């Protein structure tokens, strides 16, 4: 009999917990949490104890066996559907050393750059790759997917264009999912979308007549234009004239480009585009039924400050060595809030790293070879189809063609599926076929067979293959000339490069990452296991329903379980990041108000303590942000809330509140807050970022929440991946469920809806508390390119819930709250704990106020954070939500030994700060001021500091055997922002 998984997941055992409880003065974990969580919101006020619909906890082996059964219900066929998703060969060295390596996948977003140089280098490789291939000057460190990247491109052109127009022109030959996203997002912001067949306009074809656009130069006034290159149909055409015409009247241009095609055809930058976007999926990242993959965005010089999301740049450290960091962070939502360039924060780092490494491994010549093989295979397909008498309508192509077969398209697609190949059914008369890196001649034979050409295929003369690319678009410019893309050709070299970068970084495989509001808990190996199974990785997001039944069942179960633990009635797994979950939730609120005829309800109240993403998301949902003050205890100021509600009563759309608050406290008055909003006709959005403090003890849906997003990459164990992937499901009460995100290409538009047991009367099923609720159609617009967002990582959260069960989840919450209160109690005498709630307790995290220390000693939050590196720790969250503080979240997964090691490090650092205050060490030459210390810094040259070398790097004896050495000294942030460099520096820079 194996040990229950709960005991593997939770770091503190009964003995450790009783010692911690003794220090806090409580008899049991339940007693502690019950003292911290206000009684009025506790789950037993709302449901009968033991009424959970979650199945009892499975062992690790049982969970894997169940996942195996689900996987077996998926059918992996050869995918030739295309539409932005292509099968690809993940180099095994990348799969083993990155995708399946906790050194990469358990790292956090590189906000502490000194201990993140490995993934920052990997990301700057990615940025360099994107900038080179697109022919533009600066790329960011990934977008969520291609379609959201196009939306961000539209928003960028609106910000940066001088045009006063409200029109954005969309290429009629764009991917259907992109068109659907654009429509949804443009509607929220009042942008007028106009679809034009740009290729036809450009060449004087049929679309010109249909749209009434006389010439390229007469597209009408617009602030931006979007071109798909090559088109969704596969057509390759030269958009230079369209781009020039748009720019001539003040618009900016966005081109979505296929990265593999760009190795052979002229880059968007060379064609004059301002912005290029797309996906890097086909660079070695499995399709995964839609995600996660790294989208990309690159801009021409002059638009860097308009980029959304994270941007890696080069700066210098304290001794002048080059060092990477995140640049221009003030563009982002966590600083600029409602004025940010975007709401996205977590992106797709792990997948961007993989795609960048695919280019490192293959190099420019290797990529060109792959592209030529794909293109040649597409040419062979065309010859074979023509020989079979098929009507190929795409004259110029890279990897995709369309075939006209009036009235027979469905029949042909079905015949191909019978043979094991999925094609793209465009309409009743048209079939789309895409070739990729994995396509074989045998696959082509199957395709041609479906067209009735089984016999003719053997006779095809493949020497007749002609290139499908227009000669005028042959790429002549070089790319990926940097040595990093021309060095690691052997697997040995590649393996060592990946190891070297991984060794630069501090991830959960080294030690605790006590980042408040980030929930850096265990990402268990069993949870990861199924992610790389082909039955989860190898499916196209638009594969036929019959092929994806296992996935749909997995989705249904997770929807059911998440509804159960949050007290909501329906869940959408589509949002592929927390930011997108926020947006989806706010759009659902917007849809609900509109359906009630309340178009004027546009005010979104947001407490001043909220994460900046809330405000940025509200703006993108078309709402107007009104800030609500917090009182001196860090709680929402009820008087100010009531005053703001009174002022905006007729226009109140929603309140966004985080629970427990961003201050790490269970606000006592949350019920009153929700009631005040509801009484005024508003909806309550509860940000689920801190759900790890609540599971099993209270539920958002019970105490007043109408809708929430959850972060599966926090509470539900999806690893942070160094800054993504995330999954941000949105959960809602039944009245908002019809407005949750749908998708035009979804295999099923039916979603779980909890029956009457949840207190809601909508839906088909009768509620019985057994989770057998009815179903409902989510009919809102899409927020992600793929119908189920990033499904290939859902098995992680599925396994977590399956192995914990309702009791285990509650135990985890208890352990997390216990750990935070233990840290708060032990450190309070050294660093005052800023906020606490009922009975002086914190929730799952605590804020240490360093401002008095800074005042007294000059030692800053930065000094303490960087000094923790010398002690072998990742710093807590710095200056959020309160400037000059550290926020610590130990999570339930750390054992008492590691927690104590951290506490003792903090106490020792406080003593060091006191030594500075007492004058023993000068303010500008002490171990804090000079932290972190590299090996070089204590070895090279004469030691002239006021403290000794051992104090610098071995402040604790245990570090002698197990020392994490940062590769760089403290990084100069200002230098990096003033001298923006966002591509790989030349190797000489490091000499």
């Amino acid at each position, binding site marked *: 009999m194996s040990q229950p998984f709960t005991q593997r997941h939770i770091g503190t055992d009964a003995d450790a917990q009783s010692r911690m409880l003794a220090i806090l003065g409580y008899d049991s974990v339940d007693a502690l949490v019950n003292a911290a969580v206000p009684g009025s919101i506790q789950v037993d006020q709302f449901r009968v104890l033991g009424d959970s619909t979650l199945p009892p906890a499975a062992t690790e082996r049982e969970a894997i066996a169940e996942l195996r059964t689900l996987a077996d219900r998926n059918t992996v066929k050869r995918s030739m559907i295309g539409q932005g998703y292509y099968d690809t060969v993940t180099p095994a060295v990348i799969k083993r050393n990155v995708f399946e390596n906790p050194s990469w996948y358990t790292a956090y977003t590189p906000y502490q750059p000194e201990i993140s140089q490995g993934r920052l280098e990997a990301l700057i490789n990615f940025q360099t790759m994107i900038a080179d291939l697109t022919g533009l000057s600066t790329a960011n460190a990934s977008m969520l997917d291609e379609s959201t990247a196009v939306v961000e491109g539209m928003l960028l052109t609106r910000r940066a264009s001088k045009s006063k127009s409200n029109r954005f022109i969309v290429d009629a030959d764009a991917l259907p999912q992109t068109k659907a996203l654009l429509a949804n997002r443009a509607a929220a912001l009042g942008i007028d979308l106009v679809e034009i067949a740009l290729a036809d306009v450009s060449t004087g074809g049929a679309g010109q007549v249909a749209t009434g656009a006389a010439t390229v130069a007469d597209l009408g006034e617009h602030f931006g234009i979007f071109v798909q290159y090559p088109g969704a149909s596969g057509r390759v055409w030269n958009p230079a004239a369209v781009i020039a015409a748009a720019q001539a009247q003040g618009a900016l241009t966005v081109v979505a480009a296929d990265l593999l095609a760009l190795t052979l055809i002229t880059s968007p930058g060379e064609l004059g585009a301002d912005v290029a976007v797309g996906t890097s999926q086909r660079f070695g990242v499995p399709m995964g039924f839609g995600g996660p993959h790294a989208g990309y965005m690159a801009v021409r010089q002059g638009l860097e400050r308009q980029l959304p999301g994270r941007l890696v740049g080069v700066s210098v450290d304290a001794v002048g060595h080059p060092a990477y960091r995140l640049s221009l*962070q*003030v563009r982002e939502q966590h*600083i600029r809030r409602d*004025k940010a360039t975007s709401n996205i924060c977590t992106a797709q780092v792990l997948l961007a790293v993989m795609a960048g490494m695919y280019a490192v491994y293959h190099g420019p010549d290797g990529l060109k070879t792959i592209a030529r093989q794909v293109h040649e295979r597409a040419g062979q397909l065309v010859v074979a189809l023509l020989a079979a008498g098929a009507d190929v309508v795409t004259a110029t192509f890279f990897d995709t063609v369309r075939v006209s077969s009036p009235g027979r398209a469905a029949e042909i697609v079905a015949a191909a599926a019978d043979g094991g190949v999925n094609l793209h059914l465009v309409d009743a008369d048209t079939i789309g076929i895409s070739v990729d890196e994995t396509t074989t001649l045998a696959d082509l034979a199957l395709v041609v067979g479906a067209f009735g050409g089984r016999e003719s295929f053997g006779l095809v003369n493949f020497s007749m293959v002609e290139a499908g690319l227009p000669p005028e678009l042959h790429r002549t410019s070089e790319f990926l000339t940097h040595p990093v893309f021309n060095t690691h050709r052997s697997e040995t070299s590649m393996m060592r490069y990946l190891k070297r970068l991984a060794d630069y970084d501090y991830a959960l495989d080294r030690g605790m990452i006590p980042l408040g509001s980030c929930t850096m808990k265990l990402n268990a190996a069993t949870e990861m296991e199924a992610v790389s199974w082909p039955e989860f990785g190898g499916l196209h997001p638009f594969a036929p329903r019959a092929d994806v039944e296992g996935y749909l069942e997995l989705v249904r179960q997770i929807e059911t379980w998440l509804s159960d633990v949050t007290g909501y009635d329906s869940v959408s797994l589509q949002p592929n990041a927390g930011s997108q979950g926020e947006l989806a939730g706010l759009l659902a609120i917007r849809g609900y108000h509109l359906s009630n005829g309340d178009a004027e309800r546009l005010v979104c109240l947001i407490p001043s303590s909220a994460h900046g993403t809330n405000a940025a998301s509200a703006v993108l949902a078309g709402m107007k942000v009104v800030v609500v003050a917090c009182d001196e205890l860090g709680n929402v100021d009820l008087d100010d809330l009531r005053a703001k509600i009174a002022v905006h009563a007729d226009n109140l759309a929603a309140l966004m509140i985080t629970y427990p608050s961003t201050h790490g406290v269970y606000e006592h008055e949350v019920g009153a807050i929700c009631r005040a909003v509801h009484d005024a006709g508003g909806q309550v959005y509860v940000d689920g970022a801190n759900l790890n403090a609540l599971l099993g003890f209270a539920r958002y849906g019970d105490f007043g929440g109408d809708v929430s997003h959850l972060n599966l990459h926090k509470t539900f164990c999806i690893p942070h991946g160094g800054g993504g992937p995330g999954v941000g499901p949105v959960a809602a009460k039944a009245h908002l469920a019809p407005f949750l995100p749908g998708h035009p290409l979804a295999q099923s538009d039916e979603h779980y809806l909890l029956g009457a047991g949840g207190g809601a009367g909508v839906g088909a099923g009768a509620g019985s508390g057994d989770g057998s609720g009815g179903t409902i159609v989510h009919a809102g617009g899409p927020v992600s390119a793929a119908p189920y967002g990033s499904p290939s990582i859902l098995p992680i959260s599925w396994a977590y819930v399956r192995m914990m069960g309702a009791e285990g989840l509650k135990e985890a919450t208890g352990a997390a709250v216990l750990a935070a209160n233990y840290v708060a109690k032990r450190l309070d005498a050294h660093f005052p704990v800023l906020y606490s709630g009922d009975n002086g307790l914190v929730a799952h995290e605590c804020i240490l106020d360093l401002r008095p220390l800074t005042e007294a000693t000059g030692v800053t939050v930065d000094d303490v954070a960087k000094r923790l590196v010398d002690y072998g720790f990742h710093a807590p969250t710095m*200056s959020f939500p309160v400037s000059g503080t550290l926020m610590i979240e130990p999570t339930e997964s750390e054992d008492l030994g590691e927690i104590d090691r951290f506490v003792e490090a903090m106490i020792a650092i406080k003593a060091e700060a006191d030594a500075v205050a007492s004058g023993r060490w000068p303010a500008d030459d002490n171990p804090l001021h000079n932290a972190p210390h590299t090996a070089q810094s204590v070895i090279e040259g004469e030691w002239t500091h006021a403290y000794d070398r051992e104090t610098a790097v071995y402040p604790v004896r245990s570090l002698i055997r197990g020392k994490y050495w940062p590769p760089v000294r403290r990084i100069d*942030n200002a230098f990096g*922002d*003033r001298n923006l460099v966002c591509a790989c520096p030349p190797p000489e820079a490091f000499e």
Partner: protein
Amino acid sequence: MADKTELQYTAEHEWVLVDGDTVTVGITAYAADKLGDVVFVELPAVGSDVAGGSVVGEIESTKSVGELFAPVTGTVAETNDAVVDSPELVNSDPFGAGWLIKVTYAELPPLLSYAEYSALVGE
């Protein structure tokens, strides 16, 4: 560097040097210190009309963004190109080389004296 005691101030932490029909505007040392290392400034176009109290530019540091308010209604007569090229001037010499814009105006609104501003920031 201008004599701080001779300058006038706004509640938005800007200083104003009046010279005939033109004011020179910068942010105070207090504001520059609160912002931290300034890395980018965005200034209005010379010749553009600005309304008193409106946001006409931005001052970015590595960790936050400050807005530049026009202290008077008028026309932008000159902007400090040196500070656009070297934003660190805002930190190193806020009352001198770190000046931001000059605006010609018709009417001067009430401004704070040095003593009043010092009281405002508690110094």
